């Protein structure tokens, strides 16, 4: 991988720096924040799906754990939001690690089923434990305080999320082009070949699964504080699918593809609002067409077309 992959990072930072000054109103700023949050989650998920070649259909469950940790722990136990966020991430990490070992003995469809089941179980738990979580109605989330001052308006949130996104892109680029990242890509390319050169494949799959789950959990916490409210829909199956779709549309094994996927699929429902009632159909058609004409995802297909490999 050449130096040029980092050029994209500068572009991302440049866009993030300019964006708040050119958005016409707070609706678009809100949209930008949601895009950036989704982008971070999708980056983590793409490490798992695109680079390591594993699937997770339960990632929204991890997002839910983070979101609810940030809602429940400060509300019921008076924890500091940052501490609650850390606890949510730690709990997610531990849960992911515990279930990952048996899960990664499975492949293909079975792996998809197992992660799907896990996500659904988390969602059911959140719906049923109404005395803590507010059940299907959800619950409010206290404001996030950072070092003495409270994150209250969208501008402040925007900068926090922009920094998180820039750091995540940088870290992902670093990770991919490292011995760890090469081992991940190698086990995707040929599991047996990576084993015979000494890669402990189960360990690497578990590690990347845990990492992407923790990414999701942290961003779940951020979303919860930003929106100020959580509901079980955060953690439902359709959200998991939506995240996977962002990975696939943007481009598997492409860092910048993750960003494009997240941005497009966050914006698309808004843009399609004019179709009233038909938006799901149009949404579905767009996904289908892009899978037919851009099977590798937007960014890798375009990169190949213009002769610039990522």
């Amino acid at each position: 991988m050449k130096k040029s992959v980092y050029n994209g990072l500068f572009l991302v930072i440049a866009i993030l720096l300019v964006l708040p000054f050119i958005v016409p109103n707070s609706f678009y700023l809100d949209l930008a924040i949601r895009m950036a949050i989704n982008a971070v989650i999708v980056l983590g998920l793409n490490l798992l799906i695109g680079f390591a070649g594993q699937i997770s259909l339960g990632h929204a469950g991890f997002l839910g754990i983070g979101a609810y940790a940030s809602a429940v722990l400060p509300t019921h136990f008076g924890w500091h939001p940052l501490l609650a966020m850390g606890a949510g991430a730690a709990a997610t990490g531990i849960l992911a690690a515990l279930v990952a070992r048996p899960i990664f003995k499975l492949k293909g469809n079975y792996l998809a089923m197992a992660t799907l089941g896990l996500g659904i179980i988390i969602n059911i738990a959140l719906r049923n434990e109404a005395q803590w979580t507010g059940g299907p109605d959800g619950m409010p989330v206290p404001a996030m305080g950072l070092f003495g001052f409270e994150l209250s308006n969208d501008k402040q949130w925007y900068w926090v999320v922009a920094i998180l996104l820039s750091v995540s892109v940088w870290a992902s680029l670093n990770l991919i082009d490292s011995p760890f990242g090469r081992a991940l890509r190698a086990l995707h390319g040929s599991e047996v070949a990576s084993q015979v050169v000494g890669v402990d494949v189960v360990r690497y799959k578990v590690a990347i699964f845990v990492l992407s789950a923790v990414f999701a959990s942290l961003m779940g916490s951020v979303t919860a504080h930003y929106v100020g409210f959580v509901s079980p829909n955060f953690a439902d199956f359709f959200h998991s699918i939506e995240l996977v779709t962002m990975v696939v549309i943007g481009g598997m094994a492409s860092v910048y593809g993750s960003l494009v996927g997240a941005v497009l699929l966050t914006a698309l429902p808004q843009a399609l609002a004019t179709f009233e009632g038909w938006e799901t159909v149009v949404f579905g058609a767009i996904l289908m067409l892009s899978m037919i004409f851009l099977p590798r995802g937007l960014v890798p297909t375009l990169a190949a077309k213009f002769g610039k490999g990522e």
Partner: protein
Amino acid sequence: MSLLQVNDLSIHFGGVKAVQNVSFTIDAGIVYSVIGPNGAGKTTLFNLITGVYKPTTGEIRLDGEGIHGKSPNELARRGVARTFQNLQICMNMSARENVMVGAHLRLDRNLVKAALRFPGLKSRDRELSEEAAELMRFVGLGQYVEARADAMSYGALKRLEIARALAMKPRLIFLDEPAAGLNPKETIEVDHLVRKIADSGVTVVLVEHDMKMVMNLSDRILVLNYGKKLAEGTGEEIRKNPDVIAAYLGAHA
């Protein structure tokens, strides 16, 4: 003492006895070939010794330590490398990266350090990248150093596998039909390459159908037929062995 000892090794797949009670030893520093008709169990034997399959019975010792039933990545730690008859190349990576993966165990594989781009890790990676290019030139792939793996020919990929195996700095390397599907010129080049590898002090175990190459390179030869050991010895001994002639030519000895 011999480097590798195989005692009474068998594996059964259901009712199929793919390898039956095979025993042999390999001394350090030699080229040892395994030959036999198609379906004789050569690749299965490789898969057993390199940990891809677990033996039903029998034992395998490397430097006296029992290694049967150990996983391939544990064997890699002990200096066992291999290539595959049916290519196992990571097509999602560049040619050079495929070779760099071979050095996996010699690198700092820490996730956090990698994500934060620790300078030590990065400079080691740059050295490795040079080393990988050097290895590619060693196996005769100098013109492919900047190529993508999926843009290379079959013959080149065969050698890329050898370069990846060598990047492990192994003590023992298993080459599964390195010349299969190659044209005569490429076959001669692989012949020279195997000789160079053996001369560098790596013990080579070779499965190959090209008899000229086998006779030319091997210090000792093991002949398998229907999963059983048919004969073992030097090239001269094997050439004269009536059982071997019968198996290969179908003659009535």
